[in-house]
Each structure stands twice: as C-alpha cells, then as structure tokens.
C-alpha cells in the first residue's frame, strides 16, 4: 500500500501508471466528494430532520408549560418521559396549524391552569402579579418612615445650648478680647 502510494506520488503526469491508477481512485474521490457535498444537502428533507422554525415554536410553547411530574421544570427542559410525550404532542398540534393560545387552552382543559408556568393575568391571579410590586412599594414606604424617624431622633438628641451658659461664654470672650491695660 505504501509503495503503491509512493509510486503514484512519484509518477510523472500522463504516465501510464497514473492513468491506470486515476480511474478507480479518481472515481472514489469524486464519489466521496459527492457523498460529502450533495448528500448532506439532500438528507434533511429525505430523513425528515427537525425543522428549525417548527422546533423554535415547539420550544417556545413547551417552555410555558409545566412538566406535571417534575419540580418547577418546564415541558421544554424536563428529561422525563411524560414531558417528552407532551413535547411531541405540542409538535403535532403546531404541525396541525394550532396557535400557541389554542395549544395552551388544550393543556389547561386537561390539567387546569396549574399546567401553565405563568398564571394568566386575570381574576384572582392578578394578586400573584400585583402583590410583589405592592410589597416593594410598602417596603420602600416603611424604609422611608424608619429613616425619617431616625433623622428626627438625631436632631432631637442634639443638646440644646443653655442661654445662660451661652451668655457667660460670650461675656468671657469679650473680656478676653478687651485690651489688658484698660
């Protein structure tokens, strides 16, 4: 094998040996190039490999659905068998042309609103969305009240100057400033 390769490398262009070697070798190289370049382009359509747009849609919808057998994992992220089957069902429904809302409504009709990772912003659920902001506002108001109280206490805590003491200091300073000879 090694000697044959060496012979091919060393043979001059147009030499009979090369021509002879070029037939099957050349065909093999072209076959490999053909396989390498053409088949990958054809393969996806032929094998039904994932459609990126479809998979993006499936992932987006599945990421809003709760994996019902997991702890705080979405259907998109869960490795469980049921989540995998739910993803497959989402894919099937997207292929059927169902919208995100229709697919969510289907899962809600089977599992209840619990299946949605984000509760819909209506009715009692508004509390879930509104309470954190209300808590932040109340907390900020509380911090403001406490800070104001601390500031007032510090101002009150400063000792008031006794007017008699202040008068005495003033007089002593005047006497000190007065020329000693007078």
């Amino acid at each position, binding site marked *: 094998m090694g000697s044959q390769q060496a012979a091919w490398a060393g043979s001059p262009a147009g030499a009979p040996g090369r021509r002879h070697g070029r037939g099957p070798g050349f065909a093999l190289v072209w076959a490999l190039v053909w396989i390498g370049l053409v088949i990958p382009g054809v393969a996806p359509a032929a094998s039904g490999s994932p459609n990126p747009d479809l998979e993006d849609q499936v992932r987006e919808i599945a990421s809003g659905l709760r994996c019902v057998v997991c702890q705080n994992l979405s259907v998109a992220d869960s490795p469980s068998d*049921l989540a995998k089957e739910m993803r497959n069902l989402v894919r099937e429904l997207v292929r059927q042309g169902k919208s995100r809302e229709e697919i969510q409504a289907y899962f809600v009709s089977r599992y209840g609103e619990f299946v949605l990772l984000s509760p819909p912003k209506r009715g009692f659920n508004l509390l879930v969305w509104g309470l954190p902001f209300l808590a932040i506002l*109340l907390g900020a108001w509380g911090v403001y009240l406490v800070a104001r109280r601390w500031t007032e206490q510090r101002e009150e805590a400063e000792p008031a100057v006794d007017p008699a003491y202040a008068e005495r200091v003033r007089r002593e300073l005047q006497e000190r400033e007065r020329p000693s000879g007078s």
Partner: protein
Amino acid sequence: MAGPESLMSWKKALIPLACVPVIILLAYGFRTDPKAIPSPLVRQPAPGFRMAVYDAGELSLETLKGKPAVLNFWASWCYPACYEEAPLLESTWRKYKDQGLMLVGVDIQDKEANAREFMRRFDFTFPNGPDPGSKISIDYGVYGVPETFFIDRQGRITYKHVGALTPALMEAQVQAILKGN
C-alpha cells in the same frame, strides 16, 4: 383633623393589620392538601380514545357508550400503589361486570413483557391496553400512576382518584355510577 397622637396610634395599628392577609393566606394554605390538584375534567364529558387491547382487538370510548365505566391508568413499574390496588380492580370487575360495569386498564410508559407479566400475576380478565405516546394519558390529564376515572352512563367523568384505590372508595364510586348519580 387628627392629632399627631392619633396618627401615631394609626401607624402602630398598621403593622399588625399588615400581618392579617399573610395569616389568612397561611391558614388557607395549611388547610388545603398540596397533593390535591382538582381536575378540570370532572363533571365534563370523558375525552374520546381508541386503544389496542392486549390480545383482544380494539376498544374505544364509543364501545363504552351507555355503560358506567372505570378507567384505570397503571404501569408494571408503579410499585407499590399499582400492586396494592390490582386485586381490587379484578375483584370489582368480576363482581359488577354482569351489572353492566366496564373496567378498562390503560398501561402507560411500560414494556409489553413487563405489562403482560403484571396482568398474569394479578390474573386480569378485564380489558387492558398500552398507551403509545401517552396520548390517552395526556388527554385525561394524568400526572402519574395509578389514577382512576369513574364515568357515568352519559359518558361524564364523575370522579377522579389519584393513588391506590381503597375498597370503600371503589364501592362508593362504582355504586354511584351504576345508579347514575
């Protein structure tokens, strides 16, 4: 006009008042069963299904039309709950099949050989079949196994039970769907 003293007392009362909704929320939370998730399917028409039954052709919801039915989701890997309730399922079937009760087992996410061994072990004579792709399970909003649905003659789900069935519960629910309540 409220004086500064009444304003201060109002502010002091605000702190315990703010705790009231939190206490109410906690009281509500502690009184509910965290495992109980109400099924939106109860009192609704049972979703249609078509299932290949092990060694017995095909079965669909249409086959059950006009009959009270118990639909049980199980798996051979579901231990111990499915093993605990399996004898009860078979005895219920034998007791009530002549009164028109249909009992159907849906085997989910299982290997056929293991499922057949499970059925042989408990001598199942009621129709059971696999659920490829978990389509029936998802359509019934199943979380895990075992889960059991009781369906009345009108094809409405009257009750859903999560976990192993007890004889008392089974008796009460079967009587209810047999009487059409």
